[in-house]
């Protein structure tokens, strides 16, 4: 199979965005990402967008004046984008399209569109068997996962808090991060309890944001204005929609997506220079570390507490500041890829991981329902 590359990346405007619509945010980011790839909109023949409204790729396509020959509006939650890299790799490698644009934007902070209860149609399984018990969406399910992990493996509240503290330490080095002030374990533990054992500061941000990514073949990637990054491994999987159907609350579909991606890339965890794990809640990266094989099951909390993910640690991770401190526009997976590419190009400024050659972006969607993994390598 021919090699496939990420040839351009861009963030949309981030934070609280008042002077754009979601579609105009996508347009601005798409143009910037395509410029990095040495391309323009008319080069795009594949569109991959998530949750941009009904028939999302159609709406985005019209807005950008594009008529693609490959289109994908899949909804795999926050994991959609690493899965899109998988889908785009297959499409590009088989010649079904040459230039794939992956994009997303949300103004959920400005629009105050997040709710704690999930709006459900009548007579769904969730409306009959889960909603009547008042499990807040989505944090209640993550709280059940964290509580089980603590019970089964002795993971502590301090270890969960260490994830948020690590993310903040990285965010202090990222001028685009939403929260950059110092944060301690005590600060996290002193913040309001939302759903035991998760405090307010165990939860990701709610911000406006998004991004764009250009995936293309080797011939087209040679025109890129910036160094292209090779996609060497991809994997995706999903397993449950309701938390009651998750067979083991401490084991995610990331085990399958990670194994597929690492196997395709021919790497082992020790080869990874920088890790970008989705951090919707502090428990999430702990599960990713375990399921991707960076540590044994149950040891993720200690792994973080030992400082391994920190700027001087053995596995720099959450380097943008993550969903916990940098930006979380509802679906964070695309920004994981943007950061991974910038690290491999050596353009991450004060947060640059020296000599990073292999990066992993690991997305989650739903209630740890979906996972998707991308392994990227600098040329």
């Amino acid at each position: 199979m021919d090699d496939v590359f990420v040839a351009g990346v861009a963030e949309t405007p981030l934070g609280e965005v008042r002077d754009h619509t979601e579609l105009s945010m996508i347009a601005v980011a798409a143009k910037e990402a395509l410029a990095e790839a040495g391309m323009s909109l008319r080069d795009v023949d594949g569109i991959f967008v998530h949750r941009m409204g009904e028939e999302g790729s159609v709406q985005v396509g019209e807005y950008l004046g594009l008529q693609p020959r490959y289109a994908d509006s899949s909804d795999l939650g926050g994991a959609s984008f690493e899965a899109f890299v998988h889908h785009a790799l297959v499409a590009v490698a088989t010649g079904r399209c040459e230039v794939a644009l992956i994009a997303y934007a949300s103004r959920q902070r400005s629009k105050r569109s997040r709710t704690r209860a999930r709006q459900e149609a009548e007579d769904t399984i969730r409306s009959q068997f889960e909603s009547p018990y008042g499990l807040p969406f989505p944090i209640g399910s993550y709280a059940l996962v964290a509580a089980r992990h603590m019970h089964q493996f002795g993971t502590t509240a301090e270890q969960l808090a260490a994830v948020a503290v690590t993310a903040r330490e990285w965010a202090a080095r990222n001028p685009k991060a939403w929260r950059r002030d110092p944060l301690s374990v005590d600060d996290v533990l002193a913040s309001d309890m939302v759903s035991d054992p998760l405090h307010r500061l165990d939860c990701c941000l709610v911000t406006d944001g998004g991004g764009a990514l250009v995936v293309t073949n080797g011939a087209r990637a040679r025109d890129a204005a910036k160094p292209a990054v090779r996609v060497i491994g991809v994997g995706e999987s999903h397993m449950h929609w309701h938390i009651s159907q998750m067979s083991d609350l401490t084991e995610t579909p990331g085990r399958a997506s990670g194994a597929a991606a690492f196997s395709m890339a021919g790497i082992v965890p020790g080869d990874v220079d920088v890790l970008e794990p989705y951090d919707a809640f502090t428990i999430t990266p702990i599960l990713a570390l375990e399921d991707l094989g960076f540590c044994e099951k149950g040891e993720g909390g200690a792994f973080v507490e030992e400082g391994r993910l920190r700027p001087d640690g053995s596995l720099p991770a959450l380097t943008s500041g993550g969903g916990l401190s940098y930006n979380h526009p509802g679906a964070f997976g695309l920004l994981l890829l943007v950061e991974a590419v910038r690290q491999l190009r050596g353009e991450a400024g004060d947060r640059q991981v020296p000599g990073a050659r292999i990066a992993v972006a690991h997305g989650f969607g739903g209630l740890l329902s979906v996972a998707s993994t991308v392994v990227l390598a600098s040329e």
Partner: protein
Amino acid sequence: MSDDRFGDALTAPFWEAARERRLVVQACTACGAAQFYPRPFCLACESDAVEWSEASGLAQVYSMTTVRIPIGAGFEPPYVVALVELDEGPRLVTNLVGDCSIGDRVRVAWRDRDPDPPLPVFEPIPKEG
């Protein structure tokens, strides 16, 4: 099916049993597996021979969380939401009433919500002697 049916085409029997304060799950007469929520066949062996079967009502707390934020009308925090594992196998989201920890044995109780069918919740089993 009458208009006063509660639930959907597959779950209506669960709610009819709930009106009689009986907790039922689907059981496969071919392979013996229990499953919940209901499907038109057994997910374990794909046999169509699934029947509603009364559960013991006994379970173990698999995980739990105390919700401390208001999420909407009808919910007064704090309250406890749990996943319990029925002795028959399937797990349910539920509320725990009374002091419980993960791993504790619990039994079904019923919360009235007329005119809708009562809702299964779980309570601690008093420890022997």
